[in-house]
């Protein structure tokens, strides 16, 4: 029976690794990257994935092997040990080295993606306000200022021009939400009371998912959104059309 537990523990690394291999080969992996900095984000992900995957397979494999090796040996007595300073020191140094490597290697990308000082210097495209359970998007209109009569509004459907830096302000009107564009590798919490600048640069036209990645209440599952990437001309035409619809006396 004790051998069964050993095998059970071994199924975890085997099934876990198998799931990753299967997912990466059958389309259950990342969606296609369509943003300018997406490849860098993916690169960082793979660094961490390989480090943790190696550690995971090694430790769980060792655990399973030890369980099998020492199971059901009548008469064998357990030995108590308080560890081995050399082994522990080596492992601690190795772990520290890996963590430092991860920390240092992401500096550049993090600064580019998240630091306001690294942002492209373009006017703010929109205000995106998350709320339970919808996205409300405001464009400044022709005057470039928010809160004026020529603002243009959109519901759940975030339009951006292709091949341009889209800088926008993310806010929440009630609780924590998370603005997640899987294809753009953009994920940012929306925090009540904060105006958080976010940017990305889409490289491909099309419609993509915009989802809330923070459990924001019982209706979290209802919070559907869509990102529409268009040519700059089509984007301008869409803005004008939205404006006309809003202003029409009889829509």
């Amino acid at each position, binding site marked *: 029976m004790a051998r069964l537990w050993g095998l059970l523990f071994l199924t975890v690394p085997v099934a876990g690794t198998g799931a990753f291999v299967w997912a990466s080969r059958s389309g259950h992996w990342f969606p296609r990257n369509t943003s300018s900095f997406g490849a860098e984000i993916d690169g960082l992900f793979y660094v961490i994935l390989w480090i943790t995957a190696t550690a995971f397979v090694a430790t769980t494999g060792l655990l399973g092997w030890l369980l099998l090796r020492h199971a059901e040996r009548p008469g064998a007595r357990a030995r108590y040990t308080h560890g081995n300073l050399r082994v522990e020191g080596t492992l601690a140094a190795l772990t520290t080295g890996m963590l430092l490597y991860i920390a240092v290697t992401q500096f550049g990308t993090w600064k580019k993606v998240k630091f306001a000082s690294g942002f492209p210097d373009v006017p703010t495209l929109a205000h995106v306000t998350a709320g339970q*359970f919808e996205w409300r998007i*405001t464009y400044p209109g022709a005057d470039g200022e928010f809160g004026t009569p020529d603002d243009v509004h959109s519901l*759940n459907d975030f339009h951006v021009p292709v091949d341009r830096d889209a800088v926008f302000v993310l806010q929440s009107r009630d609780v924590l939400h998370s603005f997640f564009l899987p294809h753009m590798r953009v994920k940012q919490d929306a925090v009540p009371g904060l105006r958080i600048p976010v940017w990305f640069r889409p490289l491909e036209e099309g419609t993509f998912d915009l989802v809330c990645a923070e459990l924001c209440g*019982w209706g979290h599952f209802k919070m559907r959104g869509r990102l529409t990437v268009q040519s700059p001309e089509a984007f301008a035409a869409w803005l004008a059309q939205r404006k006309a619809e809003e*202003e*029409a*006396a*009889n829509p």
Partner: protein
Amino acid sequence: MRLIGSLHSPADRPAPMTSGEHGFYARTFFLVAAVVVGLGVLAVYVVDNSPIGMRYVLRTRIVRGKAVTEIPADARAKVEPILTERFGTPAAPKIDLEGWESDGARLLRGAAFYRRNCMHCHGVTGDGDGPTARFLTPRPRDYRLGVFKFTSTVSSAKATREDLLHTVLEGMPGTMMPSFSLYDREDVEAVVDYVIHLSMRGEFEEALAMRLLDGDDLDEDVVEEEVELLVEGWADAASSRQPVPVVQPVPSSAEAIARGSELFRGAGNCISCHGPSGRGDGPSVQGMDPDVWGNPIRPADLTRGDFRGGFRPIDVFRRIHAGVKGTPMPGGSMTEEQMWDLVHYIRSLRRGD
């Protein structure tokens, strides 16, 4: 070191597990896991397909503004079978009224969508009292009075399908009603059907109960009379849409806003409720009767821009023209040009984003 050593003294070691105990724990673990997963799958299936345990509940008291009518149990017992015959159950909803066309398959589809997305706030019966409702201000709409606040029809008429559709698609800014703009359009249309079903059912319940309390018997003639009234009210809504011109007759300008401001303070008498600065803090609000649902009156803060019925010029125009149904906000009694002046003034009150 000594402490750790003593903790590990072999004398304290628990007896090792026997293989029978191993088996027991393993079997129990897998059994519990299977039961939990199975129940979860079953629950999702049941709620979507056959709402076991869900039923429409009749009111013990009917509230309309200040008027509260207790409905005794024997009256409810007489009303219930008629309601079920005409409107079915949550699992098999229908609208069986002479002169009203209803698509059974679409109602079913709407009911499933409603249970997934709406019931939590609006309740199984559409009473606006689902499990989440008590935490919300303003409260979710109680459909059963047949009254909807934001409509395009004249003040005496009901809401149209388009009005309800607009609310589901656009949501209600400033409330917990979200937008369903990216959902399958057929689902959204179907849920509007279902909301009308719940609304008609609630109104019919009230009408029959009141007839009973007035001393009438619920014989065939009385029921037919009430069916006719109910169908007439809903059928008339579509033709009571306030027509509006394709282009705004009065475009926004400094002059229009100035004229609107004049009306806001003067002839329109908007300030008595909405206050001189439009913050909804006018003097008349004190001591005002509750709205038709029995909730206290809270005039809109016009400086916030998150208007429940929408901020587009046409939305504001419709509020001024038709009023906000079920509340003291009246339909306007001024010329259309004056109303458009007011629209532009009110929209200019919004503070910066």
